[in-house]
């Protein structure tokens, strides 16, 4: 049963957050020990004034990776593949840019962001059934950024590769496999990969900031994600459907009496597989893992051109929260909503790591330029910390213009670890990786490692 006063408080908090970050619309779902709440706030389309509804379809972005991992585990259960298999076992003839790596990268590396293959590869291979296969063939040209298994760095391409292995093993299009094995058995009737499937339902448009330094949103006209990047992030769904998926992962692998996944696989996905990750305390199979007062909260975020969303699941509390936003700055909102809901509903909080002191001399070691294909980062010493300036582009945006983000301050919280203190990204960690000679090799910002540029 919904506690009415708390529901009013929730409404007030969400509306306040939307105002703070000028988020046009949010749909939110909470599963709390057997009770379900669905809420809708604001607009589904800022231009037309069409209202958000509880069942409005929005893009969930990379939360799709948990679906891909779940589907992959159904194949593991059936013995069609093993997490320890090198990918070459299932893709004969395929090679990665650093030859031999295809024999080193295991299936498990694909779903734990540890393959070392360059990740932000979103090339468009059209809408045909050949899209995913053509994409994977093109992965042979992607840089091997680091040695497999040594670093966690967010890797979209690896999930698409996993999706292709699923497609090959089951001999059917990836999307069809997901529909038959996950969406339909779980009764997820408003969850889709293709725009032509979603378009006849109540569906939201995305909104992006006109200027990253401002507050004004505009409708994002490039709605779809290329089909080939479906396994990494192209599901559209509703808050209600997402709660079904969350409840399934809090169970024993069955749904309404029918087995979909083994209980072992459900549990294995939620275990810590990588400790030194960014964007969360640790990483499972597909899942990110955070600890709130020692309670394990698994989840995942998603960000596409004009949509940002987050799913959080606390299996030991039989609790799940999904926040779907139609804003490119929706993460700022869902982060504070998540903290508020976990605290208000479960009394859970995440103690902040205390800042440490560093001398300007120590700080100057980190200063300099860093680069990856979609972003250039410049760090300089300021006020007992670092100033971070970012010029980035998104592979999915309406334009491929560089966008300059407002500079932010970083405070040191560990030997090689800093925290953003302001703006929409406040609280995110920035950390560093070193070469054998102790010189700095990479900075990890936004979950991705960037090379230090020698100047």
């Amino acid at each position, binding site marked *: 049963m919904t506690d009415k006063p708390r529901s009013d408080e929730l409404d007030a908090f969400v509306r306040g957050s939307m105002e703070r970050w000028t988020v046009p619309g949010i749909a939110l779902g909470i599963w709390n020990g057997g009770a379900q709440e669905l809420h809708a706030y604001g607009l589904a389309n800022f231009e037309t004034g069409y209202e958000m509804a509880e069942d409005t379809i929005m893009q969930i972005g990379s939360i799709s990776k948990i679906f891909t991992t779940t589907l992959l585990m159904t194949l593991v259960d059936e013995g069609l593949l093993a997490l320890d298999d090198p990918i070459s076992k299932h893709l004969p003839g395929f090679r990665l840019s650093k030859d031999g790596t295809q024999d080193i990268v295991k299936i498990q590396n694909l779903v734990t962001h540890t393959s070392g293959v360059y990740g932000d590869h979103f090339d468009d291979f059209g*809408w*045909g059934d050949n899209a995913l296969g053509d994409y994977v063939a093109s992965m042979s040209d992607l840089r091997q950024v680091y040695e497999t298994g040594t670093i966690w760095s967010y890797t979209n391409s690896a999930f698409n590769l996993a999706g292709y292995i699923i497609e090959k093993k089951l001999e059917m299009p990836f999307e069809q496999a997901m529909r038959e094995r996950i969406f339909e058995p779980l009764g997820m009737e408003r969850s889709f990969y293709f*725009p*032509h499937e979603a*378009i*006849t339902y109540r569906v939201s448009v995305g909104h992006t900031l006109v200027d990253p330094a401002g507050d004004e949103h505009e409708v994002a006209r490039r709605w779809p994600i290329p089909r080939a990047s479906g396994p990494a992030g192209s599901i559209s769904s509703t808050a209600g459907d997402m709660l079904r998926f969350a409840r399934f992962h809090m169970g024993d692998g069955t749904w309404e009496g029918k087995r979909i996944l083994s209980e072992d696989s459900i549990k294995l996905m939620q275990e810590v597989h990588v400790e030194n990750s960014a964007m969360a305390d640790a990483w499972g199979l597909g899942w990110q893992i955070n600890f709130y007062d020692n309670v394990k909260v698994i989840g995942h975020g998603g960000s596409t051109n004009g949509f940002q969303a987050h799913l959080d699941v606390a299996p030991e509390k039989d609790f799940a929260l999904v926040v779907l936003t139609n804003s490119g700055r929706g993460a700022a909102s869902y982060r504070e909503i998540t903290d508020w809901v976990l605290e208000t509903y479960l009394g859970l909080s995440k103690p902040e790591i205390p800042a440490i002191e560093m001398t300007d001399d120590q700080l100057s070691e980190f200063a300099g330029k860093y680069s990856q294909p979609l972003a250039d980062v410049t760090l300089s010493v300021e006020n007992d910390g670092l100033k971070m300036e970012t010029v980035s582009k998104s592979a999915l945006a309406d334009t491929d213009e560089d966008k300059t983000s407002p500079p932010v301050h970083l405070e040191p919280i560990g030997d090689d670890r800093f925290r953003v203190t302001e703006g929409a990204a406040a609280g995110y960690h920035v950390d560093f990786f070193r070469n054998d000679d102790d010189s700095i090799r990479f900075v990890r910002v936004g979950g991705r490692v960037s090379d230090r540029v020698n100047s």
Partner: protein
Amino acid sequence: MDGEANLRTVAVEAMDRLSVPGAAIGIRSPDGNEITCLGVAALDTGFIVRPDTLFQVGSVSKPFTASLLVAMAGAGDVDLDAPVTEYVPGLRLGSQAVANRITTRHLLTHQAGFWGDWFDDFGLGDDAMERFVAEYGRLPQMFEPGTMWAYNNCGYILAGLVAARVSGTTFDAALKNTILQPLGLEHTHLSAAEAIAYPVAVGHTNAADDGSARIARQFLRPRARNPAGGVLSSIEDILTFASLHLGKRQDVLSKQAVQSMHEPQVETYEANTHWGLGFKLERRNGGVVVGHGGATNGFRADLSMVPDREFAVAVLTNSDSGSQFATEIVDWVLEQRLGITPIEHPRVTLASSDAALFEGVYAHPYASIEIRQNGDELCGRITTFSPYSEVSEPQTGKWFGLEHVGDDRFLISAGEHKGAQTKFWRNDDGSVRYLQAGGRLYVPGSWDNLEGYSS
């Protein structure tokens, strides 16, 4: 009461009577544009129809395709009178003998002579159209190219492939680059993937029992069909497209080019009706109406222009009963604004020997028409069994009367197709060769009797 209020009253009455959920009506005259939006884009959302709401326009896409080919001809890239095999070498048709005698002009004027309603799904890839046309060997040839008019969707798709081959890109890109972008049609698209970021109407079909409107969930999809019927557009954009054909956008198509499209190229089976390049030309009392209708699952549309009077009226609806609605609105507007009225068909006595000759069953692959003698008159009924419909069972309609209007031509006197014409075509020996209805040719007895034309 001004004209706008009048139109609104007439339209609202017709929408209620015909269960049309939403409609957009546009009029372009020397006085400017008048747009009337009525009802909802979808029954379940209740979102109102707006001047920028996208509707499927169905075969109103054909004038777009024809405009593209005529523009390419104007630029010297395509010769409309050259054999189509010059642009699509290796083209396989049901009758290979005629392949070198079919021109792009034949395709755009429905004179190619091969069976034109085959719609298997080749997906959404850039190769869909190529793969579709590669199957044209299955299309039987029904008459010598250039000797007759029979509505031909497959011909338009082949014309689309000519545009793709000559421009070295896809048909979609060629139409965008040459027609849509130069005209500034930002609310005109060829896929759900693009349309979903805009306000978009959902189709509705009428329930068999009470005629009430229900949402059609199967959205237009197979990409190969785009040249024949894949356009989604808003009433604002359709009026801009009309302005092109009123000679107001000579930056895109010269006045001469436009006029060449409105010149009669072939007589059709309907009285007072010819076909131009991409347009139906219907002589009425007071002027010639240049236009095209369109129908997809749950959508009906019409564009009618009187270029001499610099006048256009367009109707977009999200309903299967929208054809009747569009006919009523267009007729009303043309009469009110221009004093133009349809030509009445005088009844002509039917010889009893002819009545006996015409009695029988006529068939094409997805429908049959039963013709019976009823006293000294004929009546008929249609059974449809389209593999492309959401309804899989054959559907037999009610009996309707057929009024003889001379020249083996009949007018349907009641029911869903009231006012439509049919015509019996004869062999040299006086026996019936084809029955033509709805633009399609039906073979006496059974489709299997079709001998196919090859010489």
